[in-house]
């Protein structure tokens, strides 16, 4: 596993986060390079989602540093980060249920500095990748199925033209056909040069889609290697993810 040649896009060091008194992150360190897909694996409750939320500024870190493009972003409000290229797709999708599909997309699209032409381009691209969203563009978000809501959550994030997407368990609760679709989307985004920090419990998908893997347990990173070095039957996977 070679060290990144340039400065990593996102660098997290010794991150400690609390929910009240509950000490969730006990010193997490990781990095994501430009255009890289990095997987973050671990069982329930180890702190994977909390790591993403802390990077996104939705939860304040008690200790540690978060750097984005070399600059410290700890304490920066989430809406500023979103405008500077970090997009967040949460575990339960959290699309705006009472807004239409189109309005959901507009929350990301209506930004300063986006020309009318670029708006149309982005919409075309996303409707091409997710034809079902084009069909339902005037439907309220809450009427979409689980899989469609996941598509919308990812499409909405893409409207921000992000440099990195923090993707939290996108395949949870989805049928195998949709899981395959998510895999395709991750590949497509990677080809477009978007970095992804992919939190997942689906091991085969994560190993196939990612370049590097971090495995977390009880609030810390316990293992870090190239995805190619691991297989589903590896004892390390059994130890930290299996039973």
């Amino acid at each position, binding site marked *: 596993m070679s060290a990144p040649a340039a400065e990593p896009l996102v660098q997290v060091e010794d991150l400690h986060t609390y929910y009240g008194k*509950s000490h969730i992150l*006990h010193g997490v360190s990781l990095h994501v390079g430009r255009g890289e897909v990095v997987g973050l694996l671990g*069982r329930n409750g180890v702190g994977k989602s909390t790591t993403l939320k802390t990077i996104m500024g939705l939860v304040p870190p008690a200790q540690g540093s978060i750097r984005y493009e070399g600059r410290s972003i700890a304490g920066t409000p989430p809406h500023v980060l979103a405008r500077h290229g970090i997009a967040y797709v949460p575990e339960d999708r959290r699309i705006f249920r009472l807004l239409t599909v189109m309005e959901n997309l507009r929350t990301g699209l209506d930004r300063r500095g986006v020309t009318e032409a670029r708006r149309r381009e982005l919409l075309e691209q996303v409707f091409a990748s997710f034809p079902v969203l084009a069909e339902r563009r005037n439907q309220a978000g809450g009427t979409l199925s689980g899989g469609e809501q996941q598509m919308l959550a990812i499409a909405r994030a893409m409207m921000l033209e992000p440099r990195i997407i923090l993707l939290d368990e996108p395949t949870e609760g989805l049928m195998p056909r949709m899981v395959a679709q998510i895999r395709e989307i991750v590949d497509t985004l990677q080809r477009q040069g978007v970095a992804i920090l992919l939190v997942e419990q689906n*091991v*085969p998908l994560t190993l196939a889609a990612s370049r590097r893997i971090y495995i977390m347990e009880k609030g810390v990173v316990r293992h870090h290697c190239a995805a190619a070095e691991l297989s589903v039957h590896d004892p390390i996977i059994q130890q930290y993810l*299996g039973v």
Partner: protein
Amino acid sequence: MTAVAPDAGPLAAGQGAAAAPVLRTERLTVRFGGLAALNQVDFAVGRGEIRAIIGPNGAGKSTFFNCVTGVLRPTSGRILFNGEDITGLPPNLISRKGIARSYQITNILPNATALENVRIAAQSRRHGWNMFRHHRAFRDLTERAEGVLEAVGLLSKAQELAANLSHGEQRNLEIGIALATEPTLLCLDEPTAGMSAAETRETMQLIRRIARELTILIVEHDMPLVMELASRITVFHYGEVLADGPPAEIQKNTRVQEVYLKT
């Protein structure tokens, strides 16, 4: 579907409790609209067992706990505690029958001391409405509460305000509060969530100590803890019992591995 034949009995590994199960469910079903959160679950746990309940997200573990502790009324099926049908009873009556529960989000009273927290719980069990036997009753309640604090390793912090305890100590106090109601079945809901490795080890020892006199059901995600602590494991998946057996067996179960790794 039954994962364990009823007459084989849910033998606690090495505990020799072959008698009737402490808790048993028959075809327990919970439906939310069209979704079956629990589907025809047959479950039994024997006296003195430490039974771990594991399973991926949405498997129905919390729903199961909620049914057993009276927080949720099942759509169909029965829950039997020591042979008595307790299906649909409200939580306060279930507590009187001898089932106690600790919660994922700590429910302690922050502005009372550790001792007071436990004593209030003990009071619910012993001296319900009688306001006149106060003097002598007060003393034996305090003694009982101190005993519980010692069992959970918090006797030295008896006079400390609960809000000032560390997170691990608060979670252990939560267990103490449940213990103070003198249960025969203790249900622990992710007791080590948010704890460091050291705190987890302490809590594990605590659970081992108190398990000698109780039957324990524990929902957990910490696999090493579960493997070490549990005498038997039940795996839930999509509202059904997927597997049930001693830890070594569960670890070798390929279907369980598949479910966890999503292969």
